[in-house]
């Protein structure tokens, strides 16, 4: 087993939000309490305003990744190096420029979603 899994969403409805960077899906409350496991530098648990900024309720599809390193789907979606957990297939909007800047500072890759 590679790493500790991320929190698993406690509900399946519209309270779900997806992290705009790593596409991890959790409820708003979970993001508020524990932040994003893959993107701790957003410090969502400290700054709750930021949750709205770096997560979105508009996402499409859910993939539960049990074994990211050995899952083809995770690799294809480029979430193979994140913690196991529930992710979304696609988010609809990019990070704000400010947040993208944070990613740059943290030297983490950010790939904005392709607009259809």
């Amino acid at each position, binding site marked *: 087993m590679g*790493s500790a899994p991320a929190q698993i969403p406690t509900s399946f409805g519209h309270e779900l939000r997806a992290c705009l960077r790593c596409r991890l899906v959790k409820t708003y409350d979970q993001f508020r309490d524990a932040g994003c*496991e893959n993107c701790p530098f957003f410090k969502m648990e400290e700054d709750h305003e930021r949750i709205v900024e770096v997560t979105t309720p508009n996402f499409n599809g859910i993939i539960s990744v049990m074994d990211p390193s050995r899952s083809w789907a995770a690799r294809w979606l480029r979430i193979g190096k994140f913690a196991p957990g529930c992710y979304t297939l*696609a988010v609809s909007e990019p990070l704000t420029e400010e947040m993208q800047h944070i990613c740059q500072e943290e030297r983490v890759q950010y790939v904005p979603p392709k607009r259809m």
Partner: protein
Amino acid sequence: MPRHREEDDDGDEDYDGLELEEEEEEDEGGSRGGGGSRQKRGRSSFFDDYAEEDSQEEEDDEDDEDYGSRRGGKGAKRKKFSAARFVDDIADQVDDDDEEEDDGDGEDGFIVDNGTDLPDERVDRRRYHDRRGFDENDDEDVDDLERRIQERFYRPQEDYDEEATDVEQQALLPSVRDPKLWMVKCAIGREREVAVCLMQKYIDRGSDLQIRSVVALDHLKNFIYVEADKEAHVKEAIKGMRNIYANQKILLVPIREMTDVLSVESKAIDLSRDTWVRMKIGTYKGDLAKVVDVDNVRQRVTVKLIPRIDLQALASKLDGREVAKKKAFVPPPRFMNIDEARELHIRVERRRDPMTGDYFENIGGMLFKDGFMYKTVSLKSIIAQNVTPTFDELEKFNKPSESGESDFGGLSTLFANRKKGHFMKGDAVIVIKGDLKNLKGWVEKVDEETVLIRSGLKGLPDPLAVNEKELCKYFEPGNHVKVVSGTHEGATGMVVKVDQHVLILLSDTTKEHVRVFADHVVESSEVTTGVTKIGQFELHDLVLLDNLSFGVTIRLENEAFQVLKGNPDRPEVALVKLREIKCKLDRKISVQDRYKNVITVGDDARIIEGPSKGKQGPVRHIYKGVLFIYDRHHLEHAGFICAKCTSCVVVGGSRSGANRNGGDSLSRFSNFKAPAPVPPSPRRFQRGGGGMGYNARGRGRGGRGGRDDSLLGTTVKIRLGPFKGYRGPVVEVKGDSVRVELEMKIVTVDRNAISDNVAVTTPSRDTSRYSMGSETPMHPSRTPLHPYMTPMRDSGATPIHDGMRTPMRDRAWNPYTPMSPPRDNWEEGNPGSWGTSPNYQPGSPPSRAYEAPTPGSGWASTPGGSYSDAGTPRDSGSAYANAPSPYLPSTPGQPMTPSSASYLPGTPGGQPMTPGTGLDVMSPVIGGDAEAWFMPDILVEIHKAGEDSDVGVIRDVSDGTCKVSLGSSGEGDTIMALPSELEIVPPRKNDRVKIVGGQYRGSIGKLIGIDGSDGIVKIEDNLDVKILDLAILAKFVQP
């Protein structure tokens, strides 16, 4: 493992120096090795893994927890490294639920797993690195060390710097060694839940579950995908899941379809203030609304829209009175008038919104401000994509706010809907905002949101960079443009006025002014007729609306028609959605004008009173005593004018009424008297054409446009029954019966009892080359001919077709002329008329060909020939025999009688024929025929409208009117009758007959035998025995 960690933290500093050294060497080796392999990244997952390991090693150093596992001698310990890490991680996972470290752990897990897969190479490489590390370690100075440490710390935690290019994505395509996707059926609506539950199960059960991932797609109900190596793993995983039914079949997704499963469109919703949206459900469904606030957390959005509130109903509801539960109609959108509401004793509270500080009127829980309703709804209940407000909607929205500001707010959101590539090099643009407002220029280059424009003005930098949002396309009056989006999409027209970003076009289709946004058009020389049809309804149809009102469709909009309502008092135009139209009205109705003259569709009428006094034009539709007159000089409402029938007079006499003052055959030419309606375009005309042609037959039988009119007008011969051998044109088809107008009598016979081959015996017909044609074995050639006949007859009202007729006949009679090429020509001749004939669209596309003018060609070729040939009604009848109805019984709608097509007046269509010449050609023949028909002393049957038929004897003929004495021997009252109301009573064997046609016209004889359609007559004067057509024999009654 909190204890463990604490210890590490303590020891961290102590070991720091040593640690750094170790790191140093590792870093050296690691970064080199990593660098090397990183270059190969993406090409092979194998190398990927290496790089991962290498960089990971460095990270391991930072990782306090790993420190302990590393302290021993390097060579030996390294080999155990992976295993040790593995154990460590598990411990971490179990003991420490804190996510602080998870990031690193994720990476670790990745490496370790691969490490276990490839232990041997791993070790080899590491040894190599280690050695190198040792070698170089000595040379390091402290500064360099520091720098390296710095670098290392800033190294991205994840090796994610690969660009997600398409090419590299290709490298990730699934191979046979990858896990497979299995499709598993689950409870509907529980897809996400199942995916999440399986995740939880995996966490709870650890690696018992050998599945890799579970995918739940939003757009795929009832199924989830499970990624696993083996089907058995999937089965194991789903065992006991509540929402997955046991014993479901598990389907393997083919390897090439695996990527499709994961390719989802990211639905982009950019909801921000001032975005135009549309409501999806409820009373306001389809209504435009403007976003005023978005609550992303609660997924709700506050919009303002124009309320649709029935104040009366609201008042009674608030009073606690019963309100009709479900109202059928939705109140129209109207701004809320608070005073009005107060008058109805509706409680209005004025409250201040604590958040915004704005005041809202609160009525029964609904919030209003400035007449708008403010409504907070779920994000799911609005449509935010591709919302393009129409002009009317925008105008309404901008009504209450006086300032132009809000207008601009709306505009900017309009611009937000611009597609990429909106501006192109060379486009003429105008600046609509900012310092450079009203500056015109040409697009030089488009760079994302910045557009470089060339203004050509001196003193300004060239090119000039302007934000796309500040630009608007610019057009000048006179430009010919095409609308590329919005309600008028597809229309073309000429710009007649430019008002900032709004253009007024003169549409090519409707010749009406159309207002469009400059943004929505492109310059184009294309001329389109635009769409003229939605569903079953077409432009200029008469339609019945839901509320039993009716009107003519005069303009098309997106999924809606503009309808000129049948309100004679004032022009009333309504925008009607397709679903609000009940049906099309195409009944043929005749009404009486002010002077009790009959008006039918197609007649010219002049309005003599009311608001549209003085207008004149052909009647297009009649319904409930209301006429829709088309006046092409009338620029409003697509030229349609609505008038009461009693406010109109027929101009030039009704065509259907013509039979009152003319003989039967004359009535066929009554079109000469009534100026034929001049169709502005043939297609519009065709709608009424069917009825018109038929009515023009002038026997008072109009208005019964039968379903199957293919026989109409064809001359048939009765094969069986008492009328066997009789010939005549078919005047009506009803079910299996046809009404055939024999030369003497209209009878009803079985349809199977007729044949279409008419052997013509009268001298005039004998000379007709048409009949010969009809008897030559050219049947195959007739069949293709037929479709032509149909439209021709129908559109016979248009003069063009007279022209058409001649060449066509030539073709028909000449077996050696192939049919197809001319057809093609015709079709090409007038592409604009394509698809415009409602009657013939389904069955006979070639009908359009008919509108193609073949100017003069056929006309000129046989001016005299065909015309004189066609001179007698009978002849034209026999000509139609060539439209062999039995062969083509399915041809839809042939509402034409034989002659009407032939004798249309020269209208501005440019027909070389003038009424006079036309008559000249015909009158001798007509005269003879007409006289022959109604002669004194013959027994006739009288069919007066509304009366039972009666028999009588013609006593006198004058001016086309017959004096008829009722009774079989003429003993009864004497009445006046029109020949059209009379029918010859066919004589029987041994009757005395009068010959009413042919060279023996006027002679009396005795019918001594009947042979088929021929009668054997012994003429009394000379006792000659003649064989004559039964049709020209009438029973003689001694005066």
